[in-house]
C-alpha cells in the first residue's frame, strides 16, 4: 500500500532531525578550519572563507595535545583489557560455579548498582592518596577495573552456556581455570567484544574522575586537557573547536566501524530477559 503523502512527511521529519543531530558536529569541524577570529563574526558563518590547518598545528606543537591523545589511549586500553578480564571471571563464577551464598551475593551487588557513583568519589580520592596513586594512570584505571554492571552483563550471557560442555570437560579432568580459558572465554567472545567496545568508548569519554585524579598535565586525558584548554583559551574559538574534533573523531570512527557490536552491547543491557 503506497501512501505518498505520509511517506514524504515522514522522511521530511527524519531529514530535519538528521540535520539537527549533525549540525553541531559539522559546525565543529567547519569552525576548526576557519582563520582566527572568523568563528566570532557577526552574522555567524557556517563555512570557512578559506580552510586552514593552523589550529591543528598549534594543538600538536605548542599545546602538546598529542600527548593527551596518547594518555587517553593508554588509559582506555588498559581499563578495557583489565576490566574484561576481571568482569568475565566474576561473571562466569556467578553464572556457572556453585558456591554457598552465590545468589544472595549477586543480589546484593545488583542492589548496590542503584547507588550513584559520586558518593564514592571523595573517600575514593582520599584512599588513592594514602595508596600514593594520585596523579597516576593506575589511579584512573583501578577503580574501573571491575564494575557491577560488567559482571552483571557477563553473568547474564554466560548463563546461556550449556552446562554439558563444562561438565564434560570436568569429567575429562580439566581444571577450572583451563575450562575458563579454553571453553568459556571463546564462547563469551560476542559479549566480550561488545562490552569491550562499550568500555573503551566510555573510558575515552570519561571526564570527572580523570579530572580529579590527574594533576600533572603530562598525564591528562583528552577530555581533561580540553577542559583545561577552555580555561585559558576560551577566547580562541577555532582552536577549541580543533581540540574538540581531535577528541571526538576517534570515538566516532570507532563507533562507525564497530556499530553492530556497540549497539548489540547496549541492547544486551537494556532488554529484559
Amino acid at each position, binding site marked *: 500500500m503506497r501512501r505518498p503523502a505520509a511517506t514524504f512527511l515522514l522522511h521530511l521529519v527524519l531529514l530535519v532531525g538528521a540535520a539537527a543531530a549533525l549540525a553541531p558536529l559539522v559546525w565543529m569541524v567547519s569552525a576548526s578550519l576557519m582563520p582566527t*577570529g572568523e568563528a*566570532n563574526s557577526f552574522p555567524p558563518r557556517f563555512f570557512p572563507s578559506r580552510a586552514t590547518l593552523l589550529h591543528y598545528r598549534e594543538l600538536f606543537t605548542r599545546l602538546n595535545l598529542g600527548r593527551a591523545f596518547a594518555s587517553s589511549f*593508554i588509559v582506555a586500553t*588498559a581499563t578495557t*583489557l*583489565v576490566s574484561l*578480564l576481571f568482569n568475565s571471571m566474576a561473571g562466569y563464577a556467578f553464572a556457572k560455579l556453585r558456591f554457598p551464598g552465590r545468589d544472595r551475593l549477586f543480589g546484593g551487588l545488583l542492589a548496590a548498582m542503584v547507588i550513584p557513583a559520586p558518593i564514592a568519589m571523595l573517600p575514593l*580520592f*582520599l584512599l*588513592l*592518596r594514602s595508596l*600514593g*596513586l*594520585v*596523579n*597516576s*594512570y*593506575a*589511579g584512573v*584505571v*583501578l577503580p574501573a577495573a571491575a564494575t557491577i554492571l560488567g559482571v552483571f552483563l557477563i553473568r547474564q550471557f554466560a548463563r546461556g552456556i550449556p552446562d554439558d560442555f563444562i561438565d564434560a570437560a570436568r569429567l575429562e579432568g580439566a*581444571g577450572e*581455570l*583451563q575450562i575458563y*580459558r579454553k571453553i568459556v572465554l571463546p564462547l563469551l567472545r560476542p559479549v566480550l567484544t561488545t562490552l569491550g567496545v562499550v568500555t573503551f568508548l566510555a573510558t575515552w569519554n570519561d571526564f570527572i574522575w580523570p579530572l*580529579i*585524579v590527574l*594533576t*600533572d*598535565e*603530562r598525564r591528562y586525558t583528552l577530555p581533561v586537557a580540553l577542559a*583545561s584548554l*577552555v*580555561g*585559558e583559551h*576560551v*577566547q580562541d*574559538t577555532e582552536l577549541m573547536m580543533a581540540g574538540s574534533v581531535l577528541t571526538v573523531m576517534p570515538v566516532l570512527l570507532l563507533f562507525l566501524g564497530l556499530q553492530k557490536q556497540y549497539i548489540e552491547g547496549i541492547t544486551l543491557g537494556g532488554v529484559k530477559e
Partner: protein
Amino acid sequence: MARLGAQLAAAAGLLLALACADAREDRVTVRLWGLGREGEVVRDLVPEFERENPGVHLVVQQIPWTSAHEKLLTAFVGRATPDLAQLGNTWIPEFAGIGALEPLDEILSRSASVSSRGFFRGVWETSLYDGAVYGVPWYVDTRVLFYRPDLLARAGFPEAPRTWSGWLDAMRKVKRLQPSFGHPILLPTNEWEQPAILGLQRGSPLLAEDGTRGAFSGPEFRAAAEFYVGVFREGLAPIVSYSQLGNAYQEFARGNIAMWMTGPWNLGEFRRRLSAAEQALWMTAPLPAPDGSPWPGVSFSGGSSLAVFRGSKHKTEAWKVIEFLSKPAVQARFYALTGDLPASRAAWDDPSLAGDPKARAFRTQVESVAAMPRVPEWEQIAQHMAERLEPAIRGRESLPETLAAIDRDVGRMLEKRRWMLSRRPGEKSGR
C-alpha cells in the same frame, strides 16, 4: 594456571610501570607550576636557567588561572605537589596555614642574591604568614583602568576620570556614543577583585573581628557596593562572567567596551592580540578615587609569589629557580614578554619599563595599594561574595538584603577559624 598467573603479573607490572613513568635522569628534575600566561612564558626562560645551572632540569607545567587554586589544593591533598609553584599571594595564608609550604627564612638568610630589601615593602609583606616567609614575590599585580582614549575624549574626557562621580559621568557619556549592544565598562561578574577594591577604596576592612566575621554589611562596603551594583543597573556594564564574553580584546578594539579594570598581564595581551595599527586604541590610567579621597584610589596589592612545597625533594634546586627568576635582568625580560610588573625594585629602573608610557599608570598605582584580608578562607569568601552579589546586580534582591546574606554566609564559613583561634590563642590573625 601458572600461565594465567604470569599473564596477570605481567599486566600488573605494566600498570605499575605506567604509574611510575618518570624517566630516570642524572640531572635533578625540578617541577614548576606556572599559572596562566606566566606559565606559558616562563618556559621560554628555561634554556637560560639550565645554562646557568647545568645540574638542574626544569620542567614547567602551565595551569589556567580559572582552575589553578583548585588544582593546587588537589595536588596538596593528593600528595602530588610540584617542587615549587607560582601562587597568587592572596593564597599564601591559605597554603601556609594548612602546612603545604616550606618556610623560607633559613634559606633566605643564606642567599646572596635574594633579600627582603630588594622588594617593595607592601609587596614583600604579602608573602609573610604567622611570622615566617613562605614565598618570594615574583611579580606585582594591581588593577588599573585600561581605556579607549579616543572614545573618552569624544565624551568630553581628554584624560581618564579621577573621581567616582567623574567616572560615572564618563560612563554615561560614552554609552551614548556606543551602539546599543556596547557597554562603557567591562566588570566580569565572576571576578571578586573589582567589588573588593571598591570596598577598600571606601575604607572597608572587608572582614572584621580579627578576620572572623564579614564586614560586608558595614557602611563602607555598602557605599562601594551601591556604586558597583548601580553601574550594572544603569546598563553601563554587561552582566556577564568572563567566560561568557567571547573575545574581550576584539570587543575592546571594536569599541563595544571602552573601559576595563584589569591587571598588568593585559599589557602583554593587548600588545599580542591587537594589530600594530590598533595599539593606539588603548591606554592605561590609575584608578579613580571616591569623591573626597586623594587620587589615585587604592588598588589591591596582588601579584604572584614563588613558593616551595614542603613535600618537595629538591628544595635547594627549587630555590635556585627562585634566585634566577628574581634577578633584575630576568625580571625585566619577563616584563618584556608578559607585561607583568617586576616585584624587584631594581628591575623598575630598566629602560624597557621606565620608558613605557602604558606602564606608567602601574608605577603610580603600586604606591597606593592595600592587601586583602590574609585569612586562609579568603578565596572562598571572595568568590562567594562575587557570586552572591548577582541577584542584587540583576535587581532581584535589594542590596541591604544581599549584603546581610553575604555576612551570614561568611560568618558560617569562618566558624571553623573561630573555633581554631579559640583553641590556640597564640595563632596569629590575618590583619
